[in-house]
């Protein structure tokens, strides 16, 4: 996979990149990916990226946190789950049944948020295949600084000829078009 060639259009402006993507997609060119130093608005929609379902994951994590919070407190503070192994905690004569549910609100709430936040964080790192110490696949060292790359695989061109792709990219203000291997090395 690493020796696969990529056609790279290099831009210095997000709007130009976006326009190039829109034009190329209209012609039927499949865009492999774009690499930008900042999130370019609407680029994901223009590239036809499907909306991530991380939000569903966040909801499930939140529900897990909510239920864990309730379970934790029912387990520790009441006898509803038949879990009193030793000492019930009678503090200030306060009840130890469902009437203490209002006291459970803060901790349940905080745990829901804790689980949602860390759940989605971890899911994001898994989906984006990111981990500490991973060596980044960089096509151009300036792609995280001030250049934007538009990457097309040669077999994503469809019926469009290579020269036509070049002329569309140039018309939208590409400062350079070059070929690269997937790992960032060039063989000429």
């Amino acid at each position, binding site marked *: 996979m690493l020796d696969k060639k990529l056609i790279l259009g290099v831009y210095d402006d997000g709007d130009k990149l976006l326009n190039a993507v829109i034009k190329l997609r209209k012609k039927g060119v499949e865009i492999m990916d774009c690499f930008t*130093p900042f999130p370019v608005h609407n680029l994901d929609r223009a590239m036809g990226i499907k909306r991530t379902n991380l939000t569903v994951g966040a909801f499930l994590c939140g529900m897990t946190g909510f239920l864990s919070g309730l379970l934790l407190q029912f387990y520790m503070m009441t006898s509803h789950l038949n879990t009193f192994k030793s000492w019930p905690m009678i503090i200030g004569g306060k009840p130890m049944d469902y009437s*203490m549910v209002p006291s459970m609100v803060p901790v349940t709430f905080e745990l829901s948020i804790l689980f949602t936040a860390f759940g989605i964080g971890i899911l*994001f790192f898994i989906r984006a295949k990111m981990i500490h110490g991973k060596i980044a696949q960089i096509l151009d060292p300036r*792609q995280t600084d001030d250049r934007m790359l538009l990457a097309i695989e040669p077999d994503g061109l469809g019926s469009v000829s290579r020269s036509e792709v070049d002329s569309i990219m140039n018309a939208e203000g590409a400062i350079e078009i070059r070929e690269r291997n997937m790992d960032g090395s060039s063989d000429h």
Partner: protein
Amino acid sequence: MFEANIRKPLVTGGKTLTDVSNDICRPIENKPTKLWWLGFSISFLLLMVFVGTIGWTTWEGIGTWGVNKSVMWGWDITNFVFWVGIGHAGTLISAILLLFRQKWRMSINRSAEAMTIFAVICAAMFPLFHMGRVWLGYWPLPLPNAFGSLWVNFNSPLLWDVFAISTYFSVSLLFWYLGLIPDIATVRDRATSKARKFWYGFFAMGWNGSARNWHRYEVVALILAGVSTPLVLSVHTIVSMDFATSVIPGWHTTIFPPYFVAGAIFSGFGMVLTLLVIARSVLNLQDYITVEHLEAMTKVVMLTGSMVGLAYLTEFFIAFYSGVEYEQYAFRNRAFGPYWWAYWTMMSCNLLAPQVFWFKWARTTPWFIFIMSIIVNIGMWFERFVIIVTSLHRDYLPSSWVMYSATWVEVGIFLGTMGLFFTAFFLFSKFLPVVNMAEIKSILKSRE
């Protein structure tokens, strides 16, 4: 999107993408300046004061403090609430202003979030060491222990606070780190030295700016902002419940949660202004943190200051209107009792002083904003002192009325946490980009 020309640009000086990276990465890629060393040395010295006084407290015990059996919370909990309050601006700026699509947040959110994290660390020190035996600090966690299954008490607001503060700290840290990843990757790819390439590469987690990841990243940021918004409001609400759920006159009021949240935002923005007015000139960031940014923050300070002021007056009115003698006495004692000076310092710093921000000159003059921000910090410290000490020193039983004053150890610990806070901030400004480069690059052409 249409943007009227009457609106001022968010970033001045006609910066390009390259300029942004160069300007923001300069402190990281160069040796620190003399001014940095001076500030860092002073902060580090104060940090050593913290180590000394907290060490003495741990060795000798809480008897080294001025607290007694009536005023069992003194400077420690005052400082705890003070620091937690300061810790509210960061998440407010990055989460709530993100949901409201306020683009001016983008040049200040990074440093404000860093401030949040350091402030919460400072805050946590106080209740932790107030326990006396800090090595048993894990006892508030719901762990099964050796005494049978004796669990923590979920009816206690102090335990809610443990959950609230630790959730707030860890979620803020995650939010901050997530925001840092693209910028760390920028530093990595610009790095010339091997060490920098390795360490920034390690923490960048392989980020390469792919559009697919940006898409996911933005969804995650939005969700984190969505959950952080109620979180930030809940944290100070729960802190206020430490007081409001008790039956001490002056504490037992339902107005506390919104009043504390407004106060937290007020003090948080006060501290953000203190830091940023200095940082923008020391680090040459005037084009990124413009006077417009300062002006927007002063408006928030004025609004929340007035809300806090309204809460002070409402409390007074309700004490009168309730007809409860103890409440009435508590408030009369606050204003005209032995701690009258603390009360009037609070009133003038928090309610009166921010009203100068009705004038455009006051909102747009950095040195004046800096002085005002110090006044706000002082006022908010006194607010917590007034609430805690004046309510405790005279409650129901006149035979237990006492006075409280701090010892040198308590003063040292407080100054020491200032040292901890600023040492952390100086290290942050040296090793991490103080402005969110990725976000700033996306709004270079936008107006406010």
